[in-house]
């Protein structure tokens, strides 16, 4: 009988298709989503939180005083806060890969297979969400009943 480990490659694939692969950072200025595969280290010096990759390249710098929360998973238990208004609840700027939230709600990004890539419960009107770190591909963004399909190049 022969026994071999087969998980590593497949597990990597499974993770790359879920929200678990993205670090969601909330600050007073809005949300930033970073690809966890690129994140190697987080340091706290000089009043800043600096996120760097394996080579020391800076992926993001955030003022500590403005930091609110972090998560890397679908957070359960948050109730929907928006009713169907029939209006846009966010806008997406493809050039900057940035979302501007125009109504409170739960913001989610899916890939075309239905996997949740980004899950931000309780986004507030006026907040921005930086999706610059998303991997290339077609995504579907939703907030309340408003959804938008976009191509990340």
């Amino acid at each position, binding site marked *: *009988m*022969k*026994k*071999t*480990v*087969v*998980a*590593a490659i*497949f*597990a*990597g694939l*499974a*993770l790359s298709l879920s929200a*678990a*692969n993205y670090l969601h950072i909330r600050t007073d200025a809005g949300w930033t989503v970073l690809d*966890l595969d690129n*994140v*190697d*280290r*987080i*340091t*706290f010096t000089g009043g800043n*939180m600096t996120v760097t990759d*394996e080579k020391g390249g800076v992926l993001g710098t955030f*003022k*500590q*005083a*403005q*930091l*609110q*929360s*972090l*998560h*890397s*998973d*679908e*957070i*359960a*238990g948050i109730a929907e806060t928006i009713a169907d208004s029939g209006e846009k609840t966010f806008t997406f700027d493809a050039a900057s890969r940035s979302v501007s939230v125009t109504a409170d709600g739960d913001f989610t990004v899916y890939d075309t297979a239905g996997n949740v890539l980004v899950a931000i419960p309780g986004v507030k009107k006026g907040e921005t969400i930086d999706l610059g770190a998303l991997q290339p591909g077609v995504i579907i963004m939703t907030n309340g009943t408003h959804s938008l399909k976009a191509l990340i190049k």
Partner: protein
Amino acid sequence: MKKLILPLAALMMAAPAFAQTKAFYVKKGDSYTKYNLGVAEMMQFADGGHTLKIEGYNEIIDLDGIDYISLTAPVTTSLTPSEQKQKLVEIGRQVSDMVDLNENPALFNMIHSFFDGYYDESNYRWHDAPVEYEIKREYYDIHNEFQKMIKAAGSLAKGNPEAARALKASAVNIYRFQDYHGVYTANPETEAWDKSPADHFELRFKGYNGENFSIVLKASQETTSWASRHFDIRFPKSIDMTFANGSSTIATAKLATTLVQDKSIDMTLDATVGSWVVKNTMAVRDKAITDKVDVTVGGKHFISTDSHISGRNLVNYDLMYNDIKEAIHYHDENDNCCGDDPAGLIAHFIRAVNETDVIGRLQLSGRANGFSKLYNSLSVDDWTEGRFDLNGMRVYGPKILKRKGDRFDVTGTDEAVIVDKADYLNRYTDVSFRYDGEKNVQGCLTFEVYDEEEDRYIYTDEYNSYVVLTNGGKEHLVSVHRDIEWKVDGEGNPYKVVGPWYYYAYKTGEDDYDTGSVKIEVDESQLVYPSDVVDHCYEIEPHLVFPDQTSFAFGEFFDELSFSDLIDEYNNIIDTYLSITGQDKEDDPDDCIE
């Protein structure tokens, strides 16, 4: 089968392949603390971004006091795998030194006399154990709970903290049947239980050495109550349990209960078995269940476990009742199948934490959350590749992974589903261990997927063969058969009538069950003749990962060679048990640890 240690080289080759879960490794000085991101949930900054609360771990990190947070598991020095084994053997030996079964021979004779039948060579007759005696159907539940109580008492005397919870649950279940008060006496002549009236529960049976064993449960007159829309619970404030041999007490236990309507449930079990003292306290509140077990031997700490489950609406009777009802299978008034949906019940539970300490030398820590996600993944059927639908019928045969010449590699399990399950276990659970109360984690548990290859037996006779059937782009290897009938001609010469080759296809009904089969004929030209059929079975196996990032499968780390001394010690304990109860070791070789 005894396991053999694998060559270290093979282990080291496997080591880099283990699945590393996404985690925050908080580095501070020479040590680091791991926070599994799936378990961590939401992390909230406070104090102007200088502290970070890890919700799932209920811990706050002072960000000014750390070096950095790494997303890559740091390689740190630790005990070598060999030293880890020595350490565990040393702890195991100390544990076994505290276990002296000779202290409670009557208890083990009680267990033996209740559960084990015997063969009487003088009259060539097999005598059933009391556990097998005939009981009236209406007493089944009580009888089953008594069985559990006796087993639990035995386990308590061997230091198993879980036994306290089992004993408590059995006592609670028995008291749901107050109408069945009575003394139940085992009658060896009729091999049945005789009941006589009493104001309490009592079980009596003879021991093999002539002992008069009894288990008595007496409830206090004072009750604690809880009203519900279905019935008003009036539970005894205390229940005294006594395990005895005649007038000699073997073990005692007392269960104290306090119910506060819609607010809380508190239960405390105190048990004493010789020098073993066990205390189990459980408290249920609307948002949490805590359960602690402490075991001491001769006044010395032996083992303790502390469990905390966070949840919601845990003492809301109506909600819990509805969700429990939906979790189990039931039929509505039109006999339609209902329930089997535990989603509502699972949603009551948010996260669970368990801390266990063994003689102060070994500390185990376990955390889990995302129960709904875990359930949704773990409940997916993974044996889907061993069957397929063809022309509206179900056919059984493993999926062909690859075919090289006459060798077929096949599987019945869906590898992607198994990998998904392991992924969820790794993301939403976190188990680690430490030594001697020190803070540094000495190892943690991960779950890996293994491909276990096994050669299938190949039928090569004239009755059996194989065909390859294709469905949805997947090829399956399906067994086919033919019937051969011998007949005799008019001159008395035998000859064979060979039927066509066929396989079975099945109709499926409600809940996907097979409801009937039909034979589907195939032409002989379609047959294939494999020389080898290798079955790939995908399974999840726990791995130990040490701080130096070496990784070992459980079965490989806890090999017989390294732990032979410890195994001998535990076999000695088993020998003692067999000796006390007058049994030969050969009676049940499975009792030995291998």
